[in-house]
């Protein structure tokens, strides 16, 4: 670890902290329908959308209506995405003449982008036409992020509401999230990215001669392998910047290119790398301030921000430390950074930006449900790789996905307040609302669905040699980590891959599709049920026995509950995966 690396990590966090209040207050005004400076642009467009679609913006929805509107919207857009993928060969904006996407992969991708997961079992530049990338995938980057924000705001209204039966209007919240926050933010970021060298065009791919031709083993369509001299390279093009901006700002993570943010056309230099990491955290960080303002307890918002920050720094510390130290079995290799050899332990890292920025990117992208990558998580040290995995397994509530991180964290707040109530033997209260059995039942349903999906699918996969294990590139505990990570990433709607696993098979495409849908929609429903139930409660005046939720003690208890729930649920699986791999590495055994 170097002072320079920590300086960059500190600068990144300082900028998130600096932007949290102004952006958080702005979003509170947007969702509270107060006046903002951007109304002059967005309000006429919003009115036009409601006029064309027949939406009554004054209509308020109960939690059930809100949930069903969200489900119907997601279903329709998912099916349209599937249809376009299946017909892309006959549609325009396909200069490479790419074939229609195979059915199981098309469904997997449609579910992936609808759920804000952006898991990619395919090589984007060789599979998706420009039309598919723009009309379906980039569209979902906006829509799924806007839905996440709308749901978080619905939950916050549930906390803030007094004897109300409604949570707002799903269509209005989604529209306002898009017009006031995501579109302007993406436009600015896309222009900055273009100015730095991210491509934005509709050109066919370039074929260029290699400076240094090389020989490679190539398997032909007849299955025969021959040695060929490779003297040209195909360089992908496309409308990348417009997709890249919302990919990061909406914590989506699906790359235009297979190499994702390690591709120079997606992430050309240190400045774009910094901005892309900043874009992951800026909205989720600010939403804590939005929460504080909407529930009229700014301190509560900051207490949650502090809990998220503590978990973030713990993750980045472990990841950076593990990656800086490198593999102890490589006794004779100098992995220290020197004037002659920049970097140090560069296995799997983004070589342009070094260890600190690889560790920081990996931590941020899995704290949030982004899933964009600039380094190979599969090649990290066992303890470096455990950080992204644990971040996902904790529920991606460390800032988290736009909206999804906040409502996930608020469910943990309900559980924390309930446990605090049990400790002192009083009915738990949360910001003046009594937490009763239904709230705890629904919160626990939310908490339990996640491990149920992750562990069930991972267990089923390791028990199937032909369908599951045949896709692995590594044996032993590392192979288990690859499978566990895949289902954690899918259910957690993260979308990053540990890699080392060929997931473009029928089993993985279909099981991961179900995991993504379960992890998104079956968790949202109980969350909205808690919000709807909280909204209709009376406010109880604070008393001597009320547990304050804006103090350092609350922050410590919240972090403790998150870690204990995560450890109790996933420690056995982690012990068989990365922890065992680490111990065996110290004993001199590695897995190829």
């Amino acid at each position: 670890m170097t002072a320079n690396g920590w300086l960059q990590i500190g600068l990144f966090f300082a900028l998130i902290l600096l932007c949290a209040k102004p952006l958080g207050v702005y979003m509170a005004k947007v969702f509270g329908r107060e006046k903002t400076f951007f109304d002059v642009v967005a309000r006429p467009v919003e009115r036009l959308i409601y006029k064309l679609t027949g939406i009554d913006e004054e209509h308020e929805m109960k939690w059930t209506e809100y949930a069903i509107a969200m489900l119907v919207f997601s279903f329709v857009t998912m099916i349209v995405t599937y249809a376009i993928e299946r017909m892309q060969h006959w549609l325009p904006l396909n200069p490479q003449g790419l074939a229609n996407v195979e059915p199981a992969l098309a469904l997997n991708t449609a579910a992936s982008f609808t759920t804000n997961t952006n898991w990619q079992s395919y090589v984007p530049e060789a599979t998706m036409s420009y039309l598919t990338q723009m009309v379906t995938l980039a569209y979902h980057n906006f829509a799924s992020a806007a839905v996440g924000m709308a749901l978080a705001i619905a939950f916050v209204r549930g906390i803030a509401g007094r004897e109300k039966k409604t949570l707002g209007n799903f269509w209005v919240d989604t529209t306002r999230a898009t017009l006031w926050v995501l579109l302007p933010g993406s436009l600015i970021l896309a222009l900055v990215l273009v100015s730095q060298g991210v491509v934005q065009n509709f050109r066919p791919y370039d074929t260029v001669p290699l400076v240094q031709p090389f020989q490679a083993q190539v398997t032909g369509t007849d299955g025969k392998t021959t040695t060929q001299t490779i003297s040209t390279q195909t360089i992908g093009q496309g409308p990348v910047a417009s997709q890249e901006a919302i990919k990061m700002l909406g914590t989506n993570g699906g790359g235009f290119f297979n190499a994702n943010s390690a591709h120079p056309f997606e992430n050309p230099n240190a400045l774009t790398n910094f901005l892309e990491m900043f874009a992951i955290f800026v909205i989720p960080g600010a939403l804590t301030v939005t929460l504080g303002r909407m529930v009229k307890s700014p301190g509560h918002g900051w207490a949650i921000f502090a809990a998220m920050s503590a978990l973030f720094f713990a993750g980045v510390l472990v990841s950076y430390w593990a990656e800086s130290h490198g593999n102890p079995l490589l006794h004779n290799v100098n992995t220290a950074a020197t004037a002659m050899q920049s970097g140090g332990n560069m296995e799997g890292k983004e070589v342009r930006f070094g260890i600190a920025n690889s560790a920081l990117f990996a931590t941020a992208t899995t704290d949030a449900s982004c899933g964009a990558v600039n380094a190979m998580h599969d090649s990290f040290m066992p303890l470096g790789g455990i950080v992204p995995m644990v971040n996902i397994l904790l529920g991606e509530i460390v800032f988290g996905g736009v909206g999804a991180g906040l409502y996930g964290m608020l469910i943990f707040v309900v559980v924390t307040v309930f446990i605090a109530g049990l400790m002192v033997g009083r009915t738990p209260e949360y910001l003046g609302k009594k937490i009763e059995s239904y709230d705890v039942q629904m919160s626990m349903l939310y908490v339990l669905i996640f491990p149920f999906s992750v562990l069930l699918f991972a267990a089923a996969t390791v028990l199937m040699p032909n369908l599951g294990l045949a896709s692995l590139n590594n044996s032993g505990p590392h192979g288990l980590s690859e499978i566990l990570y895949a289902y954690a990433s899918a259910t957690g709607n993260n979308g990053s891959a540990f890699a080392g696993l060929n997931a473009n098979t029928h089993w993985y495409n279909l099981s991961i599709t179900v995991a993504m849908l379960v992890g998104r929609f079956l968790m949202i429903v109980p969350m909205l049920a808690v919000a709807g139930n909280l909204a209709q409660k009376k406010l109880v005046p604070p008393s001597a026995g009320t547990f304050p939720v804006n103090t350092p003690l609350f922050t410590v208890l919240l972090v403790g509950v998150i870690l204990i729930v995560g450890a109790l649920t996933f420690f056995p699986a982690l012990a068989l995966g990365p922890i065992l791999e680490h111990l065996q590495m110290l004993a001199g055994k590695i897995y190829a």
Partner: protein
Amino acid sequence: MWDFGMVAMGVAFFAIAILYVRGCELLVKKEPAK
């Protein structure tokens, strides 16, 4: 045929999700909020 199967899978999941909303709603009616 594959397309039919894939769309049916999507329809089935979202139908279950809507029933699940109804199930969660029924649970709350057993215990009116105070």
